[in-house]
Each structure stands twice: as structure tokens, then as C-alpha cells.
């Protein structure tokens, strides 16, 4: 029976790049616990020898011919950007100062 703590929820939020408030932490912890308890039922079923299915259609190695064709233009690619500079996406600093 999974019990999900506020710390675990905070960790998940960090992994998923989601800032959460204190109230949200408490609410999500209780809601996630209920949901996880319910979905844990999947462990009741299926012996070890049942293969997993990731895709209903079961296609493999779908390739196209290796011939170049146009993609988005630079302008199109930048058209939704919050900030651009010199034809590039302008983003906040990625590396730490230190």
C-alpha cells in the first residue's frame, strides 16, 4: 500500500520542473496517494511470463528514405518565442554563476 509523503511529492515536482506551493503539496500528496492506491491493483494481475505491450499497433522500425526535405524556416521556428536575439532563442542563464 503506497504512502506518498509530502517530501516525495516535493521531489517529484522538482524532477518535473513544477514549482508547488505548500497547500498544493498537501493536497497533491493526499490525492496522489488515493490514486496510487487505486492503480496499484495492476500488480494483482499478470504473471511474470506476460510480455508487456507498449504499442497496440506493433509497428517496428518505421523509416523513410534518407532524402532531405525542407523543415521549418528559422523565422517559423522562432515565431512563438518569448524572446529572441540574433535569430536565436533568448533564454535565462543555464549555468550557475559559480
Amino acid at each position, binding site marked *: 500500500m503506497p504512502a506518498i509523503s509530502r517530501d516525495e511529492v516535493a521531489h517529484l515536482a522538482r524532477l518535473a520542473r513544477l*514549482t508547488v506551493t505548500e497547500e498544493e503539496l498537501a493536497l497533491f500528496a493526499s490525492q496522489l496517494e488515493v490514486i496510487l492506491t487505486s492503480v496499484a491493483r495492476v500488480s494483482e*494481475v499478470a504473471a511474470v511470463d506476460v510480455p*508487456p*505491450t507498449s504499442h*497496440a499497433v506493433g509497428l517496428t522500425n518505421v523509416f523513410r528514405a534518407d532524402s532531405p526535405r525542407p523543415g*521549418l524556416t528559422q523565422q517559423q521556428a522562432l515565431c512563438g*518565442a518569448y524572446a529572441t536575439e540574433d535569430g536565436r532563442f533568448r533564454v535565462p542563464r543555464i549555468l550557475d554563476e559559480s
Partner: protein
Amino acid sequence: MEVTQAHLDRIAAVDGAVHAFLYLDAAAALSAAAAVDDRVQRADPPASPLAGVPLALKDVFTTVDMPTTCGSRTLQDWWPPYDATVTCRLREAGVVILGKTNMDEFAMGSSTENSAYGPTHNPWDLDRVPGGSGGGSAAAVAAFEVPLAIGTDTGGSIRQPSAVTGTVGVKPTYGGVSRYGLVAFSSSLDQGGPVARTVLDAALLHEVIGGYDPLDSTSIAAPVPPVVQAAHAGATGDLTGLRVGVVSQFRGEGYQPGVLRAFEIAVSRLRELGAHVVEVSCPSFDYALPAYYLIAPSECSSNLARFDGMRYGLRVGDDGSRSAEEVMSLTRAAGFGPEVKRRIMLGTYALSAGYYDAYYGQAQKVRTLIIRDFAAAFERVDVLVSPTTPTTAFGLGERVEDPLAMYLSDLCTIPANLAGNAALSVPAGCSDDDGLPVGLQVMAPSLADDRAYRVAAAYEVARDAADGGPLAHRVPELTEDRLPGPNRAGVVGR
């Protein structure tokens, strides 16, 4: 053009109450309609029977000439740089896209209450939900704002709204309709499909949007099944020799009695048409809901990672003092609603080291068992039937605080998403306990979409005859006294 204008007038009259549309482009629609008229005048009519017919597109498909918000703040006013394949095919056929419809945010939900732009209201009772995630598309069709709409179905998001709004909604075989330009929620489950008021209309639309697309690597390299032909064949009302299986798992506790009674009446109607009906047990279906609520959130946690505010969409908190990671976190917190956040965290948990095998891995095994149960069932019967959803439309606000209660709406629809086979909902009259629409779900094997259409078409004819007319025509009048006051959000557009 008159047809387009008439529908625009209808939308102007009722969409303040229904709120099916997030974006409307009257000028472009009239222009597209005029172009079709022009070709007809010049004796060079477009080939498609749907040329000139107005349509509403769920706001999860990209369109270069309209915003694509996916019902989220994250993509507010986002104008995509490319059209989805579905969008392209509609335009090529001369279909007149009037606008984009409301939806649960990123297609996650069963009521359209998770939209960042306010809920859509069920035309049958404005205080009730139209279902979700494609509530806007279903409500628009049910309210006669458009005759056709496109939705997407990941766990029932076309079929369940259709069931509770008295419309026809189809989830094609997975891979049957291109997902290029369909903003991904759960890539192995998402599928676009038609919403209409009749089975034949849905079939005509299915034919326009379906078929192989080299831009979608999960697209099936096969022609669209002969759905229009099947709809015509079914309309003779003869189902002699058809073997129908009633799924025994889809009844009992949690099912509204009026829904079950309407379903029984529908099944006897199928018998009257010559079908041979038996009960079929698919034990793994009892695990479909938990498996889905592991697989879909897992895939969604990966698919929604792209919404980080760096290249498009909302960006919050970039005041020059924060790192990219901090800005991403603040942006995503501001841009996503609670249901989306819950599912992202659930998926992150299920995929993390130490839990992967117990949750996601197990869910994928359940998926195999569901596929096997369908295969075994289809050895004995030609189609499987069930109520589309356990209850009629619930009230706005009723299930919002209780995610599990909300998830139960998808009980009957989910197995077909996990297995990938074709499934649809066709109106089955109203529940005798609240007078609200009930849907009959028909499921067929993968690539046998036409079989489901044939059964639905035959049933539709019989039901219309018995009820004295189509259910869709019994939708209550959206008269002045039912329309709300001036503070209801209006339709955005130009």
C-alpha cells in the same frame, strides 16, 4: 455560404450559453465557403461530399491561421507554424473550419472543467458537463452550432462526450488517423476522430481525415476501412447473423440504473434486427482503468516536458535574476492546471527507478492481457457492446474535487484505447431516471472500423423509427430564459 452564415448566426445566438468555442474566425470561414461556391459555379466542384460543410476542430490540432491553446494557459495565443495533417485534409476537402473548440487542458479530463478558459455547458442541461476532454466539439454538434466536429480520444474523450450529449462519436483504430499536429498527451493512445449527429455523417468525415500519413510514424499503411459503404449498408436495418457480445464487466455497481435500462433496450433492439446476442466476459477489463491511469500519465509526463517556456508558449518569472530551471518551474506551475500537474507527477513517479516495474511495467502487461481478451472475444462475436459511460451527464462542479470519481467516467471506454481497436458511441435514447442522453458503445476489431459503423447505422435507423425521430432533434431549445447574463465569457474571434 448561406450554410456557413446560418451556422455562424446560430453560434452567435447560443454559444454564450454553451461556450463550445474558444476561437471563431467568421471571415475566414465565409471566405472558404465562398471558394467552394465559386468552384461549383464554374462547374468544377470539389470531389468531397463534405465540401462547404461547416466544422468545429478541437483546439488540440494545430492550425496556422488560428491559435491552438489545448485548453491551457501555457499555449494561450500560440499560433502554430504548421497545420496538422487532419487540418490539411479538412481544408483540401473544402470543409469549412469555423473555429476551435473547448477541451479539458491537454486532453486530460472527462468534463471539460479542466479547461483554463472556463467549462463548456451541456446543451441538454446547461448546469451539466458536456463530458470531456472533447466537450466543446460534442456540445457544438449537439447544439446545432455545427453539423460536424473533430475530437481526440485517449481514454474516451470523443465517445464519452458524445454519449452524454446525444451525438455520434468515433475513435478510429489506433493509427487510422494521423497524429501529426495533434498535440500529444499519451502517444500510444491518442487518436483523432469524427463527431456528428448521424452515423453516416461521422463516416463521411472519417473518410476525409483517415488514412496513412508518412509524417506520423505510428500511422497504419492501409487505406481507410470502407466506413461510408458500411454506414449505407447498415441503414437497411438488417443485422441478421451478426454476433454481438455484451461485456459482462460493464454493469453493476457504479452504473446508473437508467443507463443500464436504456442499454438493455438497445440490446433488444439489436436482437430485433437479427443479431445474435451473447454475454462475453473480459476479466482483464477490470484492470483497464488502473492500467490507463499509469500508462497515460507516464506518457504525458514525457510529452509535456517540452512546455518549458524556452521556445514557445508561456514564460513566467524571467526577470534576469533567475536560472533557466527556475523559470521553467515557475512557467509550468503557472501554465498548467491541477489535473495536468497531478498526471505529470503521477507519471514521473510511475516511471522512476524502483517503481517502474511495479507500476508502468505492470500496466503494460495488463495492456497485453486486454489485447488478448479482445482477441478471444472477437473469435466468438463480431462486435462487443456496452454502455459508453456508467452515468448520464453529471453536474458542473460535482466531481471536480474528486479525481477518482472523475476517472470512473472512462470505465467502459478505456479498454479500446489500450488495445487500439475501433470503438464508437451512438445515441441510445434517454435515461428514464433523468431524461438525459445515453450512449451505446460498439467495439470492433482493429481495422474493422466499418463493422462498428454498420452496426451503429442499423441501430440508429431502428431507434429513430421506434422513438419517432433522431435523439439529436429532441435537444431542448436554447431559448432566452436559459441563456445566462452578460458576465458569461463570450466567443473570441474576429
